[in-house]
């Protein structure tokens, strides 16, 4: 079903809105939540909460982009659930992504936390927007969607080592860009 129609169903508070949104985006949201939580049960809870949030909010504030809207809710809810969970999820793609980001912010060397200002966010978004298309998509698939290296390699028809190298080069470029812009990282 077209996103506009699904949004209209949410606005009318028609129960089929939930079914149609789940049918169209459920698998995508599940993959995103599992990448963070590493648990199907917890991911299912997050998807239910995502659809409930959509049910409660879309009627008054319909989104322009339903796919991105649902993904953002799922990502935020899953990250919150990850932090509140006491279980160690060492194999989570989110945890692996955090480790890779160590290239940019060396935790061991940092004596103080970086001040994450709106300015830094704007520079980061500017950097991502300026990346060549494929490099940007692969970067976001790893660090926004927490796709595994294996999945990224399969999606792009490249080897896992090539995917790792591409991501490494992008992280290096980001570190150099932030340093050049005066962020003391």
């Amino acid at each position, binding site marked *: 079903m077209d996103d506009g129609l699904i949004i209209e169903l949410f606005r009318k508070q028609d129960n089929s809105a939930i079914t149609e949104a789940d049918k169209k985006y459920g698998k*995508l949201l599940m993959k995103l939540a599992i990448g963070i939580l590493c648990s199907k049960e917890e991911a299912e809870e997050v998807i239910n909460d995502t659809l409930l949030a959509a049910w409660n909010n879309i009627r008054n504030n319909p*989104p*322009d*982009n339903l*796919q*991105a*809207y649902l*993904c*953002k809710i799922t*990502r*935020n809810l899953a*990250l919150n659930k990850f932090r509140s969970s006491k279980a160690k999820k060492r194999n989570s793609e*989110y945890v692996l*992504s*955090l*480790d890779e*980001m*160590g290239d*940019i*912010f060396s*935790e061991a060397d*940092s004596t103080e*936390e*970086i001040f*994450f200002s709106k300015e*830094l*966010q704007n520079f*980061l*978004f500017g950097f*991502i*927007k300026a990346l060549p*298309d494929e490099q*940007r*998509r692969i970067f*976001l*698939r790893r*660090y*926004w*969607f927490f796709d595994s290296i294996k999945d990224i390699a*399969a*999606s*792009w028809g490249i080897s896992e080592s090539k995917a790792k190298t591409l991501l490494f080069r992008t992280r290096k470029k980001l570190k150099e860009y932030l340093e050049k812009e005066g962020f003391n*990282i």
Partner: protein
Amino acid sequence: MNNEKLLDILSDIDDSLISDALQNEKAEIKRISEK
């Protein structure tokens, strides 16, 4: 903690870039379903 915050502030990125990053996902699903 800094790495966590970096991945957190990515959350607000433009909707268009999120959908754009999923282009391959659509092609992949289409490819699999056409098999």
